[in-house]
């Protein structure tokens, strides 16, 4: 698999190093150093994944993330030096699928990138229903009353994971493993933020969710069909 990765980072040394590592792992990297030019570069290169530094000159990473997300559902992985809850949550809420904290090891980064690109390699024709939603797994579409709801691949994966086993309550750790590909329990904030983003798209009333239901003290499960 020759994934195209757009690296948005103002630090030229880090960008070059990222390029070396990504090339070494068989990816095809493209670079842009300025937040203002990131969207143009994104349209031009049509990457499979975006590596986005949160602290950028010009437009900051959060804005870039929103812009890209407004156009496309492709995976976005944030690079952040800040580990405080607020910074991470803001980044995730702006549309990032996952994040890596600086300083990271090359293997860690590659694992995250691969986990985000791994999907779409298993086109099993499958039709799922959850609540009043119909999910076409192979066609990567979610429909309510015949009308499609646009979801990012990550949100789609999250919904499919829940819909496949509607009888099971998923803990956040299990979801991290199944959807994000973390082998060790990591940051459960990822799950919380993405469940909220998913709900805002698929629930009729996100305040009173019926499709992705919280099980207090345990995690989440699919609502009754």
């Amino acid at each position, binding site marked *: 698999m020759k994934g195209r990765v757009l690296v948005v980072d103002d630090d030229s*040394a880090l960008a070059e190093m990222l390029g*070396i590592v990504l090339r070494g792992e068989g990816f095809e990297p493209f670079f842009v150093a300025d937040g203002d030019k990131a969207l143009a570069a994104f349209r031009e290169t049509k990457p499979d994944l975006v590596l986005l530094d949160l602290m950028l000159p010009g437009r900051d990473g959060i804005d870039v993330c929103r812009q890209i997300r407004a156009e496309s559902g492709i995976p976005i992985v944030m690079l952040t030096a800040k580990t405080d809850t607020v910074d991470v949550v803001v980044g995730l809420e702006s549309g990032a699928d996952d994040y890596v904290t600086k300083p990271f090891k090359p293997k860690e980064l590659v694992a995250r990138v691969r986990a985000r690109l791994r999907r779409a390699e298993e086109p099993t024709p499958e039709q799922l229903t959850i609540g009043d939603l119909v999910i076409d797994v192979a066609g990567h579409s979610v429909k309510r009353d015949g009308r499609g709801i646009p979801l990012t691949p990550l949100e789609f994966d999250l919904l499919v994971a829940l819909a496949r086993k509607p009888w099971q309550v998923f803990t956040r750790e299990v979801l991290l493993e199944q959807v994000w590909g973390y082998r060790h329990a990591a940051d459960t904030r990822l799950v919380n933020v993405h469940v909220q983003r998913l709900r805002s798209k698929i629930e009729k009333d996100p305040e009173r969710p019926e499709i992705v239901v919280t099980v207090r*003290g345990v995690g989440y499960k699919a609502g009754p069909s």
Partner: protein
Amino acid sequence: MTDRADETPSGTATDGAGAVRGDVLSSTTRRRRGPSGLIGLVKRQLRRPTHRVTALYRRSIQLRVVAVSLLASIAVVLVLGVVVVAQVRTGLLDTKMDAARAQARIGFQVEQKKIDEARDQKLRGTADPTVDETGTWLLRQVNDLAGSGQTVYSVIAMAPGTGAVVPDTGGFAPRYSGDIQPSSIPDTLRAKLMSEPGQMFDQPTRIHRAPESSVKSEPGLALGMQFVGPAGNSYQMFYVFSFGQETDTLNLVTGTLATAGVFVVILMGGIAWVVVRQVVTPVRMAAGISERLADGHLEERMKVTGTDDIARLGESFNRMANALQAQIRQLEELSRVQRRFVSDVSHELRTPLTTVRMAADLIYDSREDLDPMAARSAELLQGQLDRFESLLADLLEISRFDAGAAILDAEPVDLREIVGRVVEAAEPLAEAKGSAVVIRGDGEPVLAEVDSRRIERILRNLVVNALEHGEGRDVVVRLGSADGAVAVGVRDYGIGLKPGEASRVFHRFWRADPSRVRTTGGTGLGLSIAVEDAHLHGGWLQAWGEPGGGSHFRLTLPRTRGGEISRAPFRLEPEDSRNNRGLGTYGMPYRRAISPVGSTAMAVAEEPTEAPDGGGAGFGFGSGLGGVLNIGPGLGRSRMPEGPRSDPSDVRTAGAGYGATGAQVMVDPTPGRPSVAQRTAEPDMTGGTDVEGSQRARDEQQD
């Protein structure tokens, strides 16, 4: 994500415990209160209002000033009143008395003259025939004398003698003018007249009048003299002057004075109240505002009006508050800038570090293709980068605490799970060190509302430290809970801590022994962060240690978030400390033997062990672990034949605790070990130091 359903049971449990404790308390109080207690209670009840008044008196300057000025003005008014009344009395009564005496003297002279005249006439034979009828004579005399001053005085004539005036006892009945009663004359005056006839006497008296008169009784002055009448018999003549009017005037004056006095006293009190209020109000305001300032409301100021002394006080106060505020603001700003700088530096370092890290990883992965020197360099680079990274992470964490940006993400957790994870993670290190980590608890869940990430970090730190400094001996992790608090203790039997070090271990970048080789490359910030984590929970992290006897770190946390810790579930100084076992601080009481694991032998030779109450085996760290702690009495006896107290029970004490995992513990009779006497003489040699982790104040300064 705090779960409400999980919260409730733990809350109820705490409440229940509290209720039980309350019962116990009240029952003890009830028992103590006997009959004497009841009297005491009554006394106390009686004393209470007085206490309250005294307390108020002590506290309120206003009350005190008003009370003092009231007392002073009462005294002044009283003295003034007494003086004035005395003056008026003198002025009024004395004049009247002098006038009365003059009048009486003239009257009596006239009387004497008449008597003499009558006697002369009687001798010459020209006398009125009635002159010998004493009654008629007297009546005439009385009428003559009284005639000139009907309204001012009355006149009484009566026979000498005392007692009730009975008509005709001495030959004639009393004669008197107007409606005055003879009983108005006091007996003492009559007696005096009798003893010295021809002399005038006077005496204050009460005047009695006839029942039909308007004034029944009034004060007056009686003046009298005894005469020998023309008939030769003695009789007494009295002038009685009424002082009723004067007394009325005096009463009026006294009453007026008293009324005025009462008003003056009340007025003085009121004035004092108002005046003191003028001074006290600003003082109270200043006190209140100082408190608000102390509470951190730095913008509070006093209201200043006018330019008097009080206003000056207010101005000075406000100037002081301004200065304080400026100082504090400046310090806050400095510390904010400094913290911000640390945080920024940490963040800024991360980007280049990431590049370096990735480059180093790349080089490290291809080190087989490099020449040996470069390959070794790559390895060193890799190792130091790890260390640098963790140092940076710790620095950032500390700066987050300093900035007050650390957030507690607490939820109910069973601490056993965290301890289990930590011990499991420390397994490789333990193996490398040749130690075993043993978890001790009573098998009950140790539930508490904690931030598991932080607690895990604390415990990881403590366990790794214990293994690092444990000299290959076992490490015991102990769990306990009591009284709304949970605790985890990490005990090692390694190099321990020197006196005074127990507090310093929590200092940033402090190292027990700079010369020691560190294998895990700690950052020197681990325990500082651990203390901050503990304080964030409202908990304690404390250290105890003795040189060569190992150390004990105890983390105590409130069971519920924001709860208070009254006491820790177990003591900081372990039961198996040298001090508790009565061993010398610098002795070498145990050593890990190489014999097969599973049986423990221990003994104390030569030195008698001073058993702490209850002996040691029952509660030590080592008890109850699969019967590891086998104490052979025979062995113990054989090893200490000439000990003064060579009882196996002494050995138990000595053995408590460090047989935890079957580590063999022996005592070698070192000749140089200090004797009991030496130990008593050197109390400072005791290594057990018990100091709380770090200044709590630092936490509280953060807003």
